[in-house]
């Protein structure tokens, strides 16, 4: 792939990216959330079309306009969420839509199971073709997914035909030579146990040995060194570096991922820390375990972590959206139990959810009615809303936040930044003192970002406490007073704003103890 460029409205997701994959090599693709890894792979797999650049396979220029084109070229992608039909067998899933038929339409079951057995044996997987996918563990499902991905490729055709397979395995490059076979895996181990990981890695090595070119996207540095041959680090839609694995060290990798110009200016105003507003003690359950921290008046507590580290889950527990299964929550020193978000709101906790379209707004309602939504009971008399009460409450807030819309416009017509301001506005009218902002500036233009930061300053100045979850390190460093770093459902470390650097936060988020400078192998 050469000079790949892709822009979405408002952002350039990829800006001249080069990536070269070799048959038989495992190519590790690293980068922070939003660095452009997924976009690049979506272009390779035909889910997106590129704006510029070219793709060559075995030296021949190809156009990939749809997933169908990618499949025809032997490109297979295994996404984080598996796409299997749980109530069908392993064999049925692998050959879904491509099952061998006879007598004009009837599935040839013996042939189906036979082919599946051969394919599985060939891939070194010990799975029963007749087993229901719903009965399998996650690693086994992943294997089914891999087998499915490879079932239509030249690789599998070769293995289905035993004589061809004999030739193919004798000459590994031959297979890849006839039809390129590229396998992309997006964080395949995120939900696997270490034994399952070992199985998966053995399989990946076998595939590579057969001449499949593998792209492996991961956040885990240990995996990079266990199975990688080459490594490419991406940041902000560009490739930082591509190196053979022998030539990089862990601290070097972390630096490549994190290093960026701190050109963004953050209008942080520090406020004297006040009394404790919220204390979280040993909260666990689901992906979370043993999380304890406290939030004080006047501070912004940043929470860093990779996708899936449990940050949003934690936010939802504190905001009453999910039940707190283990541990306890204390608001201003008193223990509280939240059954529903309304209970948390009654204790002055307001959540700005991660996904504003799905969780923050009612798209068909007006700006004023969205802002007034949490305050219905207070606004109404005997359940009746006077004609102007919602706009009377919402207008000053919308004006204060500089929401560029009339109060009677449905919010679905607003831009991302203005929508986010409306979600923020919902919590400004009430008695909320504990704000939980989950990715407050995602998909928001620069101007609106600064306004949101200014709003955070005003909130802390009047004695509120803010928990800010963000995947943008500069924002976390720029706006937080303290930063908690989460890793796999636990609190990895706490870093004071003064001591925080991108490298430190990122190392902790990656699960490395403070080892970036020592350069130890993992």
């Amino acid at each position, binding site marked *: 792939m050469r000079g790949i460029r892709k822009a979405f409205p408002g952002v350039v997701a990829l800006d001249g990216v080069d990536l070269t994959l070799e048959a038989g090599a495992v190519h590790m693709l690293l980068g922070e959330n939003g660095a452009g890894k997924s976009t690049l792979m979506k272009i390779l797999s035909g889910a997106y079309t590129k704006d510029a650049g070219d793709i060559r396979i075995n030296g021949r220029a190809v156009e990939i306009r749809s997933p169908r084109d990618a499949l025809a070229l032997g490109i297979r992608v295994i996404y984080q969420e598996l796409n299997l039909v749980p109530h069908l067998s392993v064999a049925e899933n692998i050959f879904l839509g491509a099952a061998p038929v006879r007598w004009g339409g009837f599935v040839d079951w013996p042939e189906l199971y036979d082919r599946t057995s051969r394919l599985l044996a060939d891939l070194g997987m010990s799975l029963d073709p007749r087993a229901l996918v719903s009965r399998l563990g996650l690693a086994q499902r992943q294997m089914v997914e891999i087998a499915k991905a490879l079932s239509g490729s030249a690789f599998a055709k070769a293995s289905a035909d035993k004589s061809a397979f004999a030739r193919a395995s004798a000459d590994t490059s031959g297979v890849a030579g006839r039809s390129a076979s590229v396998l992309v895996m997006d964080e395949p181990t995120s939900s696997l146990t270490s034994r399952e990981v070992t199985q998966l890695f053995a399989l990946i090595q076998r595939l590579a040995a057969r001449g499949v070119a593998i792209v492996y996207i991961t956040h885990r540095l240990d995996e990079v060194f266990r199975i990688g041959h080459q490594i490419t680090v991406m940041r902000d839609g560009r490739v930082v570096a591509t190196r053979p694995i022998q030539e990089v060290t862990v601290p070097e990798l972390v630096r490549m991922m994190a290093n960026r110009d701190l050109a963004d200016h953050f209008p942080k105003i520090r406020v004297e820390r006040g009394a404790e507003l919220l204390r979280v003690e040993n909260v666990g359950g689901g992906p979370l375990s043993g999380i304890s921290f406290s939030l004080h008046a006047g501070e912004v507590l940043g929470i860093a972590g990779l996708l899936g580290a449990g940050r949003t889950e934690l936010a939802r527990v504190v905001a009453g959206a999910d039940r707190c299964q283990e541990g306890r929550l204390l608001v201003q020193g008193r223990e509280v139990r939240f059954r529903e978000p*309304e209970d948390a709101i009654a204790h002055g906790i307001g959540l700005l959810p991660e996904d504003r379209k799905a969780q923050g707004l*009612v798209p068909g309602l007006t700006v004023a009615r969205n802002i007034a939504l949490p305050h*219905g009971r207070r606004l109404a008399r005997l*359940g009746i809303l006077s004609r102007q009460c919602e706009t009377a409450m919402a207008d000053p807030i919308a004006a204060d936040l500089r929401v560029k819309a009339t109060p009677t416009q449905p919010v679905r017509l607003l831009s991302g930044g203005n929508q986010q301001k409306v979600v923020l506005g919902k919590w400004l009218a009430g008695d909320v003192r504990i704000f939980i902002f989950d990715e407050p500036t995602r998909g928001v233009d620069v101007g609106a970002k600064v306004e949101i930061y200014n709003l955070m300053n005003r909130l802390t100045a009047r004695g509120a406490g803010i928990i800010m979850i963000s995947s943008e390190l500069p924002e976390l460093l720029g706006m937080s007073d303290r930063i908690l770093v989460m890793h796999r459902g636990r609190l990895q470390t706490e870093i004071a704003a003064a001591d925080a650097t991108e490298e430190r936060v990122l190392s902790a988020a990656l699960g490395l103890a403070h080892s970036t400078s020592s350069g130890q192998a993992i």
Partner: protein
Amino acid sequence: MIVPARQFGTLIGLLALCAILWILTPHFMTVSNLLNVAEQTSINAIVAVGMTFVILSGGIDLSVGSIVALSGVVLGTSLQAGHSLAVALPLSLAVGVLCGLANGALVSWGGLPPFIVTLGTMSIARGAALLFTEGRPVSGFDPSFRVLATGRVGFIPAPVIETTVVYAAAHFVLSRTTFGRYVYAIGGNEEATRLSGVPIRFHKTMIYGVSGLMSALAAVILTARLNSAQPIAGMMYELDAIAATVIGGTSLMGGDGSLAGTLVGALIMGVLRNGLNLLGVSSFLQQIVIGAVIVVAVLIDTVLKRKNST
């Protein structure tokens, strides 16, 4: 609230339909016939009020016709047992409301799909009505009760006035109360509404309760008009009510629509039936025409919406 342009479209459709019938048959555009249409529409129009609440909130209620039958036979039986209307009326309304609340509780606390829950209630309420009456209609009531359907104020039939009152009250609830706001909010985005601190389950339960109440009100008028409470009454009412709601521009996805639209939708259905009868169209053919009108109306609506959104 300003009536969105889309409902003017439905209104224009109604007027166009009336104009065509005026040309085709001299009997259509007479005061007595129009009042007749309004009267006949009233029952579907009232049931459709409840349906509109439910569909606005993103649900569906298939049990309305069976609840009409059950409330009706409870009303008829208790009247015949010698109870006064002051006892029988609240009793039958309570039966309707309870059926609705049961639907709502199963949907919100039980987490079951509304389609399944109300499909079950549709069968249960129908069965209960049949069991209660041993399958026989309960007929013959005191004129003081029948006046609810046969009476007139001036020249306007009582059911038309009752329907108007129900629509006015329901419109007020929907546009001027927190409950009404939550109906739209829940249908528009249930999770966002929950995260805003609205007690979702309580309100969803109440929404189905409203639908049950509307079915019971329709049962009162139906029983009074027929002078008979029949356990097989209200068959297919759910489909007429859904049709009126959807023709009136309410989105089956929830969160978008209005009662004004539903009223126009119910009138379109009523005018169409009446006109086809006047024209002597066979009842078999009528079903085909009505089905086609429903599909075409929603098709136009969908096309207009698609245009508006781009």
